């Protein structure tokens, strides 16, 4: 505890976690699940299982009626969560309850409208008080994000923005400047969802992002297998896995079975991340 207190700057939990990963030469794993699928109580158990299995950052998806950036798997999860009555306020109470049990960094992943309806100030205040560390809004780019960024950062919340294969170098610089905690690089043009292979253009894209920022880079969209994670070693500071986890929840017959499947999947992926890094170490 005293060690924690001395190293405590105004750095966020997210930044600290990435700093630890860097110093131990480990690649991180960011795990996304949709909050409230199938219930907020279940999500609490899932997050604890993911953190226990080695996930470095958890992204909690706030379900939205019109998830334009999501593929079928996360669309279905959002529908299940909304049918279960999940609201943004409910997700914030979940964060509060989780924060009493785990120090894992928590990112709220949402579309803009629910946050806007709660009010930017009120949302930032409550998210921060509950113990959230960062926010990612799918349909807000730095161009439209000035007010939002101001509201979040005044409450010490990291703002994570997305970078995409279509982003120009100018935009990548803009995105890097607006981001804190880490930068989320989308691996391909498209919606969320697992794919067999990562895009060929990914290494060049990751290098373009690296040139404009020292922030940790997490790469996501289409990652489900240890092989995908291995490919990212050396390109990214973390891999993001989402639809593959949500699919485990959908497939499992019960909440405990889902929690078990999530933990197993994360162990496998995190294992690939760490093994890949140590293999590279001598040449690095």
């Amino acid at each position, binding site marked *: 505890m005293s060690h924690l207190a001395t190293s405590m700057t105004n750095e966020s939990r997210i930044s600290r976690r990435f700093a630890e990963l860097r110093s131990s030469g480990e690649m991180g794993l960011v795990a996304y699940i949709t909050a409230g699928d199938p219930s907020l109580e279940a999500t609490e158990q899932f997050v604890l299982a993911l953190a226990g299995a080695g996930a470095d950052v958890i992204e909690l998806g706030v379900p*939205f009626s*019109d998830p334009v950036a999501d593929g079928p798997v996360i669309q279905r999860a959002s529908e299940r969560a909304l049918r279960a009555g999940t609201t943004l306020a409910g997700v914030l109470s979940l964060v509060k309850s989780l924060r009493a049990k785990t120090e894992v960094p928590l990112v709220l992943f949402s*579309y803009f409208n629910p946050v*806007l309806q709660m009010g930017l100030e009120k949302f930032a205040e409550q998210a921060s008080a509950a113990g959230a560390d960062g926010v990612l809004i*799918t*349909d807000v780019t730095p161009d439209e994000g000035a007010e939002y960024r101001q509201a979040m950062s005044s409450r010490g919340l990291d703002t994570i923005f997305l970078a995409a294969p279509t982003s120009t170098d100018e935009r990548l610089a803009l995105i890097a400047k607006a981001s804190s905690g880490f930068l989320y690089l*989308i691996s391909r043009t498209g*919606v969320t969802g697992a794919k067999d292979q990562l895009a060929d253009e990914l290494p060049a894209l990751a290098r373009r992002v690296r040139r404009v920022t020292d922030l940790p880079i997490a790469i996501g969209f289409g990652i489900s297998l240890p092989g995908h994670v291995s490919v990212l070693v050396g390109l990214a500071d973390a891999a993001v896995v989402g639809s593959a986890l949500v699919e485990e929840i959908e497939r499992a017959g019960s909440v405990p079975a889902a929690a078990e499947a999530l933990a197993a999947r994360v162990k496998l992926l995190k294992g690939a991340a760490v093994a890949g890094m140590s293999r590279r170490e001598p040449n690095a």
Partner: protein
Amino acid sequence: MTTAPQIWPDAKGRFGPYGGRYVPETLVAPLEELEHAYAEARKDPRFQKELDFLLKNFAGRPTPLQFASRLTEHLGSARIYIKREDLLHTGAHKINNCLGQGLLAVRMGKKRIIAETGAGQHGVATATVAARLGLECVVYMGAEDMERQRLNVFRMRLLGAEVVSVNSGTRTLKDAINEAMRDWVTNVRTTHYLLGSVLGAHPYPMMVRDFHRVIGLEAREQILNVEGRLPDLLVACVGGGSNAIGLFHAFLGHAGVKLLGVEAGGRGHALGEHAARMAAAAGYSGARPGVLQGTYSYVLQTPDGQIAATHSVSAGLDYPAIGPEHAWLADRHRATYTAVSDDAAVAAARTLARLEGIIPALESAHALAELIERAPKMPRDSVVILNLSGRGDKDMEILARYI
């Protein structure tokens, strides 16, 4: 009195506080590309000439402005003129925008066009233009709309388009737009998204408006020719708001011309029973400013920001948000908005059929129903223009249930 109107939107695509560009990062560069391509095309006389040629020789512009003598007499009302957009090729105003964006897609070197459709009119117009210009075409349509506008599905397929049924969410227009956006995010490098109303991220609300502006430009000249003066009132139905803004825009600077938009009142005032976003004063609940599908405007939604289901007998008005420029016109009291029920719209369609020999689209019948209420209360020498945005052939199966 004529005042020089400020030109909206601003450089960020804002109409006052409304509009903007709320999209995933992947779509920002393509939207910027589209914005630049459109700005270039707009200045290029060759583009305008080609568009004018197609509007005239392929689509059938100019459309008549017809004096509705029997309706006027029957109502004992203000003098009613009808802008006959229903006479355009494919049967609605939608083709104005499709030709403009279709030519732009060709100019940008895009070989594939995608679109959403509600009533099927925009889908048919898009499929038509794609065929004419030799482009591949995919249209997304809600499963419920495919059911109620079956004839348009056949038309699109006959024209060589692929029609994709959308089964998510409310299975109507909003969900078709979601699915089209997902396609666009995925195939953005080869594909142009031909959005069908003054909705979505900048530059769409501006660009789609500009392509429909011809409606009002013609109507202004036509009414000056026959009446020797400007009209007192313009009336149009409002789904996203493209036919309405197309008629209104050329008159914005004429403060004496009142503008009235008519939304779908559906079958009740409770959230979920209507698609009236601007008619809170008339008791329709649930609309607040918010972000849906790229733009900030009035949106029907739950208190915690989930987009609400809507209902209308007309698929083309069955959508939870209104175009951002309309929200801005309403805020500044330049235009007013009201809503009309399913039943009133159907009754109005029958009235027009019997008195004027025109079967209107159910969308347009909403504007007509409000006009039938209002025109008799106006001085008899006042002049009103109704935008008849489309014809009713596509609605025969629904209308047949009411005959």
